[in-house]
């Protein structure tokens, strides 16, 4: 047992160790030591977050845990450094440090031009991502949210493929436009919440915001809209996804391992953590729209992936489709669907990371992103191929693997959702099980099967001694574990979901809404 008073320190350590590591990396000159240092720091962070996950008490999942000390800017401005983990964030926090660790560990296997600056930026990304999930203050969340953008922009802009410039600008400008608008939203919310508490002029602590949520319902619509817009870009939802495919395609694999599995979750996490709970009335008004957009994302992403030939873009569109499921589950807002969405955020992280890493291994030897240039990997590298097949099956929702559990909870919840009021959304979304099989099996057919197209594909030598297949094997173990024993993981979010649902129900009924009528008009105030 770890003594309880030490846990908050462990949380802070696991967040800040990557930052410390990155500073040291920038200062230290030896390029050889850089990689080892990065691995050591991220391993440290990973171990700490595993300890935290084991120490987390699921029965009190609705309470923020490991948060004993915090600090605010001044007495009247309650904006500051408060961190902790709750039922919604604990799994995402652990997943982030795991995938971040994998990204740093495998970087030289999938990318040849690594150097200290590269590792330093990856470490900043890791720290900032952990910060996003640990922040218990909206402004702090915003800082980490923005902070993660900077290293990513450099990673794409400097180490990206031939078309990196436009990819970087697509990514940066899109995200920045969204988040600058959100900043105004954050400030408005901060000032509004302070009116409830005497002697305070500004507060963005989550606790204060939650208490003030009824006030937010009467703010102008654009305040809520700014949050919605920022996260619709981040997730992304159709039609705000234009930055995505190009950014994934151009970014080096270690950076994609942050972008696709982790950073898109900022948006969906924000939705479930504060956008829906703090704006329930306004959210109910836009429910049909968001639900429609998420179903469009699901179908559009899956269909366009069927004819795409760029391997990384196929995975990007598949990601667009899968994130649509997560948003649909959140919009449906009942116990199975919320829990399914939270679990699916982790599931999608694991499967996407495994797929990008697996195909990263393939593209490391044969650098073409066009799937027609590949083939026969199953005969030249059976271990990697096997792991890719399993991860693909998880991605298309084969029962017994992780993807199915989340998908089933989401869809069954959405089918039975009072918020959505129609079973059509779920049925249309479920149609993607066919489309997903089509594009995924096509991808496997051209890359893994057939005969080797390229001499490089049959080359067995590699510069690294790390066994590639077995690193992917770690993902597979988690996929099977979640696939067969999902309550071990959903127990974290159970209590949180129940409490949050009751709270939202309370706010809705205060506003004279039953919470079951999807067609409400905006409160005119």
């Amino acid at each position, binding site marked *: 047992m770890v003594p309880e008073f030490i846990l908050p320190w462990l949380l802070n350590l696991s967040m800040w160790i990557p930052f410390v590591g990155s*500073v040291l990396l920038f200062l230290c000159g030896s390029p050889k030591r850089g990689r080892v240092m990065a691995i050591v720091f991220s391993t440290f962070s990973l171990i700490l977050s595993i300890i935290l996950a084991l120490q987390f008490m699921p029965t009190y999942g609705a309470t923020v845990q490991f948060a004993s000390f915090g600090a605010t*800017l001044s007495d009247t401005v309650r904006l500051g450094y408060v961190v902790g983990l709750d039922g919604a964030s604990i799994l995402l926090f652990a997943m982030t440090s795991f995938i971040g660790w994998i990204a740093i560990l495998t970087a030289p296997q999938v990318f040849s031009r690594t150097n200290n600056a590269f590792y330093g930026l990856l470490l900043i990304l890791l720290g900032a991502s952990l910060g996003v999930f640990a922040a218990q203050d909206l402004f702090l969340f915003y800082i980490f949210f923005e902070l993660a953008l900077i290293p990513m922009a450099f990673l794409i802009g*400097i180490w990206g493929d031939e078309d990196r410039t436009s990819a970087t600008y697509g990514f940066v400008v899109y995200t920045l436009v969204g988040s600058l608008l959100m900043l105004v939203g954050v400030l408005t919310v901060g000032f509004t919440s302070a009116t409830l508490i005497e002697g305070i002029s500004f507060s963005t602590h989550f606790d204060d915001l939650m208490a003030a949520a009824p006030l937010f319902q009467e703010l102008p619509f654009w305040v809520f809209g700014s949050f919605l817009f920022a996260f619709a870009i981040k997730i992304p939802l159709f039609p705000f996804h234009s930055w995505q495919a190009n950014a994934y395609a151009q970014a080096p694999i270690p950076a994609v391992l942050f972008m696709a599995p982790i950073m898109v979750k900022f948006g969906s996490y924000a939705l479930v953590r504060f956008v829906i709970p703090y704006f329930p009335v306004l959210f109910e008004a836009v429910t049909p729209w968001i639900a429609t957009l998420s179903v469009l994302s699901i179908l559009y992403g899956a*269909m366009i992936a069927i004819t795409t030939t760029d391997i990384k873009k196929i995975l990007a569109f598949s990601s667009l489709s899968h994130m649509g499921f997560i948003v649909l589950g959140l919009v449906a807002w009942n116990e199975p669907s919320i829990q399914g969405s939270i679990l699916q955020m982790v599931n999608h992280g694991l499967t996407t990371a495994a797929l990008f890493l697996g195909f990263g291994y393939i593209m490391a030897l044969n650098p073409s992103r066009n799937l027609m240039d590949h083939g026969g990997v199953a005969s030249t590298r059976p271990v990697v191929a096997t792991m890719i097949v399993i991860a693909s099956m998880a991605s298309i929702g084969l029962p017994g693997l992780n993807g199915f559990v989340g998908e089933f909870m989401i869809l069954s919840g959405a089918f039975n959702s009072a918020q959505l009021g129609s079973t059509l959304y779920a049925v249309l979304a479920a149609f993607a099980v066919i489309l997903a099989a089509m594009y995924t099996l096509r991808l496997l057919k051209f890359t893994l099967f057939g005969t080797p197209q390229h001499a490089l594909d049959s080359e067995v030598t590699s510069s690294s001694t790390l066994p590639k297949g077995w690193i992917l094997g770690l993902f597979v173990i988690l996929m099977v574990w979640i696939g067969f*024993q999902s309550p071990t993981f959903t127990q974290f979010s159970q209590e949180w979901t129940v409490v949050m649902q009751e709270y939202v129900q309370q706010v809705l009924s205060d506003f004279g809404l039953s919470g079951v009528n999807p067609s409400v008009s905006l409160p005119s105030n």
Partner: protein
Amino acid sequence: MSLTTIIALVLLGLPALGALALGLAGLSKESWRQHRTPFGVLATAAVYIPFLATLYLGWTVLQSGAFTVHFGTFLEAGEWSVDLAYLIDPLSITMALLITGIGTLIHIYSIGYMKHEVGAWRFFAYLNLFIFAMLQLVMSDNLLVLFIGWEGVGLASYLLIGFWFKKPTNTDAANKAFIFNRIGDFAFLVAMFLLLKDIGMLQFEGILEGVDGMSQDTLFWVGLLMLIGATGKSAQFPLFVWLPDAMAGPTPVSALIHAATMVTSGLYLVTRLSPMFVLSPEVMMIMAVVGAFTAFIAATIAITEYDIKKVLAYSTVSQLGFMFLALGSGAFVAAIFHVVTHAFFKALLFLGSGSVIHTMEHAIDAKHGTKRSGLQGSSHEDEASQQLDPQDIRLMGGLRHAMPTTFRTFWIGTLAIAGIPPLAGFFSKDEILMHTFNAGMGEFAGPLYIVLWVLGMVTAFMTAFYMVRLTATTFHGESRLESKLPGASAAFHESPRTMTFPLWKLAIGSIIIGWIGLPNFVVESITGQEAHIHLLKEWIYAQAADIKVTLLYLTEWLLMGGSIVVAFAGVFTGWRLYGKGQWEATDQRLQERFGEFYNTCRERYLLDEFYQRVVGQPVQWACKNILEPIDRFGVGGVVAFFGVTTRVSGGVLRMLQAGLITNYAVFILLGVLFVLAMMILGPTIGGAP
């Protein structure tokens, strides 16, 4: 844990363990991959021990009744939860016995068949995975865990069909099987959502208790969606097109997929939920129509096929149609009965065809001088370069002398499927047709069922006919390979003992297994008292909600007589027309006689082309010409909009690339740290917290 729980765990877990062990062994070391027989033996043990476990569990059920075993929670979602729980009752035991029993024989056969295959470890791992998934499917106590098996067998068959993955057409066949199954799975998913919404649970027990409270609409939709699901998995019209293509896999796979296991899952599902299905006569009617129609058109295609495995594949589709006809007529016991008998004779026929293909390959290769050695990769992958197809019955003939065991057992299988008494197929097929006739006397859609009965009788005739055509053309007459490749027939030989042993076992089964379902009315009509000689019915009666037969004994006798006449007529006609290997003349005559209809059958009713034209191409076209431009326009717009920025900042980027990146990043980091430090230290500087 009690003893029975541990034994159930062995039954359910050992095949998975086998698959895992084989996979790890094969993936870990290059040198281990060379071993073949040890892998085969290990895989066989992982199926044979569960077979013994099933026998024990069956004995327990016989002694003390059905029970359920739990292994923790699978999924928990607040309002409902589902356990990893398994039913040990007569129906699941029957299916498990079939799967592990016939599975064991197929594993033994594979040891011989895959002897020269480098990837044998992979093959046996897939086989074990398949058995594992199949057992999940038939043992589960709820729909969700059943769905693990449902899609699991889909995955295993995808891997097995695409086993020789170097040939792109094999991968295409594998993808096709998976995707067509997924269409059915989609319907299955929606059916589960409906059940959750309506009665809030997925356990069979709960569903069957809740059926009385379900509205007629829900019953209809759940039934129909599940029927669509079953249509995909059990290869019924219009989703059966994947199955003939699935012949791309190694022969034991065909046997496993077709005979004992995967395709029967749809039937199992309907039987398990039979009390729900009988409440919706419309769904029952649709099921019967689909079944009879599928049986008929698949049989017509089988008459025109020349590929030995494809004839058997269409014959399977046709027999599955019979089973669906049984379900739709309310004869659930008869459907399971036909599953059991069909498993024996169809596995026998597929394995026999494998034996034939094996020898044909050797004969062709011996003549061509190419040595099919396992060392340079998969032996069967050279097929593409071969001019002569070893599966083409037009090249066969005269094989009866060289391979007596295969020849004899194949004939036994043929007579069994044709419905010649007292072989297995006769009893189950007769029972199905009798039930259909019985439904024809019923109130709901009676005349329709009579039409289906006629269709069934016609199909029964055709079954006997095309099977004799196949057998005679393969084994009788003169060797036609000899005329193409003089001297090739010298290389004909009987298969090794590991392959003939299962053939004999299955042949004996094909003769006697029908006796577990002797018709009760035969005794009843003589003694006038209720009889219990239909053992299978006594055994699984509680799970199968059969509709009662209300026919007169005389009618039943006449129907049975009709079945016998039809079977003998089919065999006789087939023998007259094909018995001396005169397939060419006969097929020509058939073509002249039936004209366009024959050609339609030959082209498989153009179903594949239909899917290609109506679904495949338009979707591809829309993706390429509508969605992609939209997406490119979106991305392009952004790029154009920020083009100006790009040019300006390009300079900045160049600067950064010139080595300033490290410094720049440090500045950013320091700035962020400064802000955060302000936030942390702010209170300390500004006053009391």
